[in-house]
């Protein structure tokens, strides 16, 4: 970090406003040419713009959310009355497996990554993510995983061993056919995508922040995404390994014995691996949402956030502790009792950083002048629902209580309170907040309030009764129950709540549809917010910022005075170049050329997707897939390094002074 050595390489000059305006127009034209999105269908496949990829992630994830929601609705119909025969056990098992798998792997994680891939580069003030082509590859890998799951589901090869797929039930002896194989390969595909996005986010935040955005000035949302990305990096290999070992146990001519108790294998090993991923996964979904909340509350409380440092430390502490409590998903299994006590302690401890966050948010509201706009209303809904989910979580940390309610509808209620309350409510808040940035238009406030009210009521109607059902003996994943259990009334209530939630989602769709074209227009900073994504027009141009700027505080648009805040000039207008800054202090360090748009990421994803599909049927697909992937990679490498560019002397625009 010897930034002083670089100091002579940058020049600080004072430029008159008239010159600046001219320079800006000139830059706009030149950058537009360099950064313009490619045209046509092939162009669409090649487009590496982080905003387009982010939006694609979000839209695709919402499509999967809708599909999984329909499955949930069908399950609620089946359970609405006792002894129902709408769905048989086979269909019901596929439905809840695909529902859970979709929500975790195809909705919750990708939607958070999509939001981050859109907003993180904007919030740190750069032009694109660090590795644009890898980013595009990640999206296609995710899409291929989703198509694998839903393609197989449509053909009645839908996974039916639960989203956790515990062996032996998912193993070769008890899950005939190819259903679980599709599941395990699809997991690998989506995790590749998650890992790619995580690497993108970390590298972008570490190396491409605008000058002056030292670590203690990074917006809280960006901090949340950095913590999330690190968690993805350490958690996702575990699930890839679990599903990989399972696939190897099942695969013809491989047929290993990892989970075969008769040959020294261990089904609990799978559970350990799965939950070593599975518990952090919850926080991988939840921490980005806390980032939304930490970002939204100051804007709508009209004051800087209270307790920036404790909030950041809480995020990091949550990230660490989240890896130390996976066994609380296994309290009912024969694992050593002493170990369980340790995990109880850790599970209870994680309530502390989350408590700190909650109190800081309330303090920010308390110390500000809260504005009742739709985004804030969603955040308030989040506080209400997440508090319930969090407190039932504390109950679940206790071994005796957990052994009662584990694998019952109490747990179903708990994690829907945590995941819908903790992630989807802030997500909707964030969508209402950032929609003007995406489209230049507001979502309708009144429809938004109706959407909230119905969703809030429907949600509680659906999931609150499940707490009681679980405590009265209703176990999870049952496709039916008899009338004598007395669970009918509460189940009917829950199912009617699902109808209300469905109506709320239709309202949301209508709102997006209507507002996209006819919503109230928004300027570049309609909420008068403080972070850098609002310092560029809505929607942002392909290059994000004509002139990068520097920041001198945590809330640059509120605190930094425009007269004294330096702008950055001198990046190439001939190629896609971004400014790299130092890790801690964000001093300008060097310039870094990004790759052009390219078809190779798509082709690589295609090859990888086909190999993983082939791997369901024969191990030969592995070497074949590697061979083809290497071919594509050679082309990727070769075509991305055209000598004409590399050997050209670096053309830099002179300063406008």
């Amino acid at each position, binding site marked *: 970090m010897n930034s002083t050595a670089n100091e002579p390489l940058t020049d600080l000059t004072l430029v008159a406003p008239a010159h600046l305006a001219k320079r800006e127009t000139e830059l706009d034209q030149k950058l537009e040419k360099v950064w313009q999105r490619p045209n046509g269908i092939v162009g669409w496949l090649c487009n590496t713009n982080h905003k387009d990829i982010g939006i694609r992630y979000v839209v695709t994830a919402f499509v999967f959310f809708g599909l999984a929601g329909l499955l949930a609705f069908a399950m609620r119909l089946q359970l609405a009355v006792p002894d129902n025969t709408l769905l048989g056990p086979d269909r019901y098992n596929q439905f809840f497996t695909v529902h859970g798998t979709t929500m975790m792997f195809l909705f919750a994680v990708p939607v958070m990554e999509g939001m981050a891939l859109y907003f993180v580069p904007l919030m740190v003030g750069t032009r694109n993510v660090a590795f644009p082509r890898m980013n595009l590859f990640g999206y296609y890998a995710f899409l291929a995983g989703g198509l694998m799951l839903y*393609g197989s589901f449509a053909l009645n090869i839908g996974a039916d061993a639960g989203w956790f797929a515990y062996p032996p039930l998912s193993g070769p*002896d008890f899950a005939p056919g190819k259903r679980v194989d599709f599941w395990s390969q699809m997991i690998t595909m989506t995790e590749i995508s998650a890992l790619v996005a995580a690497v993108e986010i970390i590298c972008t935040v570490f190396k491409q922040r605008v000058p002056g955005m030292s670590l203690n000035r990074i917006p809280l949302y960006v901090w949340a995404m950095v913590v999330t990305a690190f968690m993805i990096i350490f958690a996702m290999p575990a699930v890839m390994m679990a599903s990989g070992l399972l696939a190897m146990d099942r695969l013809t001519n491989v047929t290993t014995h990892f989970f075969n108790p008769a040959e020294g294998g261990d089904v609990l090993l799978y559970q350990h691996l799965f939950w070593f991923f599975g518990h952090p996964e919850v926080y991988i979904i939840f921490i980005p949402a806390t980032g939304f909340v930490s970002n939204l509350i100051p804007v709508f409380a009209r004051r800087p956030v209270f307790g920036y440092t404790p909030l950041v430390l809480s995020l990091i502490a949550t990230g660490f502790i989240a890896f130390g409590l996976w066994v609380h998903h296994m309290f009912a299994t024969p694992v050593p009792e002493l170990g369980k006590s340790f995990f109880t302690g850790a599970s209870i401890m994680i309530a502390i950083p989350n408590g700190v966050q909650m109190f800081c948010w309330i303090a920010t509201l308390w110390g500000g002048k809260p504005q009742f706009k739709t985004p804030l209303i969603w955040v308030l809904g989040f506080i209400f629902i997440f508090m319930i989910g969090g407190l039932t979580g504390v109950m679940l940390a206790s071994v005796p209580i957990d052994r009662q309610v584990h694998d019952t509808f109490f747990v179903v209620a708990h994690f829907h309170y945590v995941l819908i309350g903790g992630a989807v409510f802030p997500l909707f808040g964030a969508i209402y907040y950032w929609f003007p940035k995406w489209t230049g238009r507001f979502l309708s406030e009144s429809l938004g309030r109706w959407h909230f009210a119905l969703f809030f009521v429907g949600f509680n109607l659906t999931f609150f009764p499940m707490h009681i059902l679980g405590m009265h003996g209703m176990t999870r994943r049952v496709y039916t129950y008899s009338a004598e259990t007395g669970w009918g009334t509460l189940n009917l209530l829950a199912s009617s709540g699902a109808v209300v939630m469905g109506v709320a989602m239709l309202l949301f769709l209508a709102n997006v549809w209507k507002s996209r074209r006819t919503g109230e227009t928004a300027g570049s900073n309609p909420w008068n917010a403080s972070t850098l994504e609002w310092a560029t027009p809505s929607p942002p141009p392909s290059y994000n910022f004509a002139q990068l700027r520097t920041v001198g505080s945590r809330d640059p648009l509120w605190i930094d005075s425009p007269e004294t805040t330096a702008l950055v000039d001198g990046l190439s207008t001939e190629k896609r170049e971004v400014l790299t800054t130092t890790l801690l202090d964000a001093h300008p360090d060097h310039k870094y050329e990004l790759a052009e748009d390219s078809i190779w990421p798509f082709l690589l994803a295609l090859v990888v997707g086909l190999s993983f599909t082939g791997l369901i049927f024969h191990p030969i697909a592995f070497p074949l897939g590697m061979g083809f992937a290497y071919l594509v990679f050679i082309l990727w490498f070769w075509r991305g390094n055209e000598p004409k560019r590399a050997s050209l002397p670096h053309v830099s625009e002179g300063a406008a002074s």
Partner: protein
Amino acid sequence: MFCLVLLVLALLLLAGGCKREDRSFHVSVTEAGPPTGVRLSDLHPGLAAPPPHTVNGFEENALAVSEGKRLFSAFNCVGCHANGGGGMGPPLIDRQWLYGNAPEQIFATITEGRPNGMPAFGDKLTTQQIWQLAAYVRSMSGMISTNTAPGRSDHMKSNPPENSIDPARPASPPIPSSAERP
């Protein structure tokens, strides 16, 4: 994008294999009825070709074959045939059997029993179970698709799992030749 969808869907269609993943538990009696016209020999005098062998629909259904595998050990077939390697009874992983390896021939062998030790299970099993067993028996020597055949079982390792048998080269177990003769 579009071609990705098409490609993946085409592959999936191929993968679907129609009947492999079917889970209709309720089988109508006619569907699983006993075979007719079982012949023990493929030698056929005269010019006319012998009538074709019966097709056992369960061989295309993964659940049915795995159910056959479960019954194979539950009903103690392993007592004589071991896990296919043979013992008191002949091996089942080599597909060279005195009484034929066609589905209906195996059905008849299970139902009627055979000299020198194979009991007649006709009264003791439903036709559905016999067809399931017949499908599984054929999977032991690679006579059904490896995509439908069961994988390794949660037991001690013995013979290669049914889904890992090369259909072109079934195993030839080292057993005394006396066991080959009736």
